[in-house]
């Protein structure tokens, strides 16, 4: 199956949106969620989530705390903060503006 790289700069948006939809998730769940929601089209280099999550922790968009998985294993769960929610709207509107612009260009007769 052909899998597309995610467009550059959208990883934050994907993570933010995923967390906004699902509440608390650990890294593996975030990767799976992005993949499944996109019907397996978006392929994240799964490890690259972690540096991105660190940067988001620094920015204060997400917080992390340790919990246990259903399989009874220790995992770090990430959760959106208020600042993260604000950032999501910013990124969403940026994204929509860009997509809209691209669409107008390609669909122009």
């Amino acid at each position, binding site marked *: 199956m052909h899998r597309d790289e995610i467009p550059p700069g959208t990883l934050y948006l994907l993570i933010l949106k995923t967390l906004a939809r699902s509440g608390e998730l650990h890294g593996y769940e975030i*990767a799976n969620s992005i993949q499944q929601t996109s019907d397996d089209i978006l392929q994240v280099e799964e*490890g690259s989530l972690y540096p991105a999550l*660190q940067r988001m922790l620094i920015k*204060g968009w997400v917080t992390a705390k340790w919990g246990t*998985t259903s399989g009874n294993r220790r995992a770090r769960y990430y959760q959106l903060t208020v600042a993260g929610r604000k950032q999501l709207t910013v990124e969403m509107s940026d994204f929509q503006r860009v997509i809209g612009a691209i669409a107008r260009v390609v669909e122009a007769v």
Partner: protein
Amino acid sequence: MIWLRELARRLSMLTHRRQFDTDLEEEMRLHLELRQQQQIESGAAPDDAHTTARRRFGNVTSLKEKSRSAWGWEWFEQFVDDIRYALRMLHKSPGFTAVALLTLALGIGANTALFSVVNGVLLSPLPYQNSDQVVSLADWFPGYGESSSSYPNFLDWVRLNQTFSSLAAYRRDSFNLTGQGDPEQVTAMEVSASFFPLLSVDPVLGRNFSSAEDQLGGPPAVILSGGYWKSKFGSSRDILGKPLNLDGTDYTVVGVAPENFYFCCSSTGFRLSDVYITIGASKDPPVHDRHIITIRAVGRMKEGVTLAQARADMDNVARSLGGAYPDINKNSGIVVTPLQQVMVRDVRPFLLVLLAAVGFVLLIACVNVANLLLARSTGRGREFAIRTALGASRGRVIRQLLTESVLLAIAGGALGLLLASWGTRAALAALPSALPRANDVRLDPHVLLFTLIISLAAGVFFGLVPALKTSRPDLIGTLKEGGRGSSGARYRIQNIFVIVEMALAVVLLIGAGLTIRTLVGLWTANPGFDPHNVFSFRVGFPPSIGNADPNTVRASLRQLTEKLAVVPGVTAVSLTTGAKPLDHESGLIFWRDGQPKPPDEVSMPYALWYRVGPDYLKVMKIPLIRGRFLTAQDDANSVGVCVIDENFAQKFFANEDPIGKRLNFSLVYNQPLQIVGVVGHVKQYGLDETTEAPMQAQFYMSPLQLPDDQLKTWAMPGYVIRTEGSPSAFAGAVRDALREFNSKAALYQPETLDSVVTRSLASRRFAMILLAVFAGLALVLASIGIYGVVSYIAGQRAHEIGLRIALGAQPSHVLKLVLGQGARLALLGVLCGLAAAAALTRLMTTILYGVSATDPLTFSAVAFVLTCVALAACYIPARRAMRLDPIVALRHD
């Protein structure tokens, strides 16, 4: 505020780095395992599942790195690593570390010590509020230059100026204190009531002077200095309101000045006053005479007034005074100078030369350590080749080497700080009168900052060249050679270092040599009198004599001279008041009798005025050139006579015989004085007196011939006696003679003229001793440097030398080989040094006297000494090379 919270998160990560690593590790492991499990569940083989999980995850190590580096602390971690590594390396070679540390400690310590002096004396503001508004004011007379002023003139300054919020006059005096135990002499400063408020000084006890106390006839009041209050009265608060009897007058103690209050100008010496009294109430007639210049003044400029404005204002004041009192003030001016400049004017050139010298010492120390590092880094070439081969960038290697050298420098700086705090105290204690503002010399934050900066700069300076050289990526060569160099070119930097070091040492030694020659010249210079075996003192007359009628005073003076003359071992005695060489200045204007009187006092010449007894020439061993000196017969009943010095004769009687001519001193004498003799010139202003000194003409007359009104204030006449044997042993006998003369007379200021001469050279001696110490330090460091490099190169060439010996080279040949190499470096260094010194010593001419800045004797002696020392330093490794066992040397590889 967002960035602040972000910073807090970053900092918390920094403090929990270990936790961070394990957390990240665990998180990623969980991810990989879950993915692997998911693959197995969907039917993959365990091995494949593992590979897929890893492939989908990416490079774990690099992702961990990325996650960490997101927090931005790599530089810090590398820094910590570098320091840890540097400490380990320094610990591994304790010999190197010790030598480098000691060298740097000496270099940085000497700089810190001297900077703390320069900082305290020259740079830091005076300890008065808004001290940059405080200036010194002095009169200026054509043909004379800057001068003291008269008190009436000062009062006009106060009245006429527009730019000063306050002005205060001051002058030094001393008094005979009685009624508080044994009579004693106190040094006093007579000041305006505005003096303390102007300097923003509040009394620690009591109050400042009132303006009523600063008037003629006002209530006599005294303020004690903090130091005197403590030493004399045990800091007793009861002293307030009590009377203090000074020269027979009771002064009420109204206040005590703070102990740390300090005020001095070079003209008043660096000594502090014991007590302060008001100048306006002074009963000394000269104070209130516009013709007599007795005071100096300070002023506080109004807020916002610049120095230029104040100067322009005082120019106007001077002009209007010139119009009002043309006979005194015509064409005279008023000089306004920042007080700080006036205070430090005499020592500034010394300190600047010393600062330059000590900078050189640090340079030499740095070069030495750089050399050591270079020698060591050649040994470590392999270590860095491996690091580079493993992917360390050149910048990273340099950073690590610089961390090492800066660490060394900072440790050396800390040690140097200890040396400096001890050394400064020792130097100031040894030469207390050499510097003004000695109280202000301390290790304050400025000094600490200075030390930190020079340490860092030194670390980078001596670390950079070795680091650049070591990091040069000649991997293959170094690895192949096994880390041992043999090619000649690699010593080039070391050789240059040695040459530079030698050259710096030459410059310093020459500077020190010139200063020493100056001082030796001054010691042996003929001051015009012979200070050896002369005992000098003052006598405190009780009021019963001091305030008596003129004839009683004359009789007492004569009687006391006779009493002193019969003390066993005393060969001559003379009263001396007025001007005294190296000690006290007193001048008088005159004009030649028979010539028209000049229109005003400004146009009259000045001469130094010595009032002495008939035996003065015998005591001081001043030669009589013509005619006769004063005799005991020149008294109140005979015709007024005077004796002039050779400069006087030459200047005012160029082609005539002065004997028999008459001089008018109309300020003091109604009748002209007849010249009866000519004597040798005396260096009044110090052994380094030049022909530019303001008053060159000198004249002598008998105090017994002074008019009655001049004999009113005779509280403390001075005496000089010539003794057989050590003069300091005569204090007891003199005191006995005084007691016999009058039980209430006291002995003050007993000292030998030799010590007066020594004191006059204190600043120069301070500079000379320090320069000599710095030069000695430079000599030692430079010899260590050349020794180190020559033995290092000889060691590196052991293989070659062994081969030569095995092939039959004579030991003398080997000696010549190694010694020749050192000698070449030393000579080159000495030559460069001589050239540099010829250019640089010109900057120190202000502190030289009687010796040229390019004195050939000093230059050649230093060149010779330094070459010898360098050869001696090279001889040790040369001899070692000579005795090399060829078998050992050859097998070593």
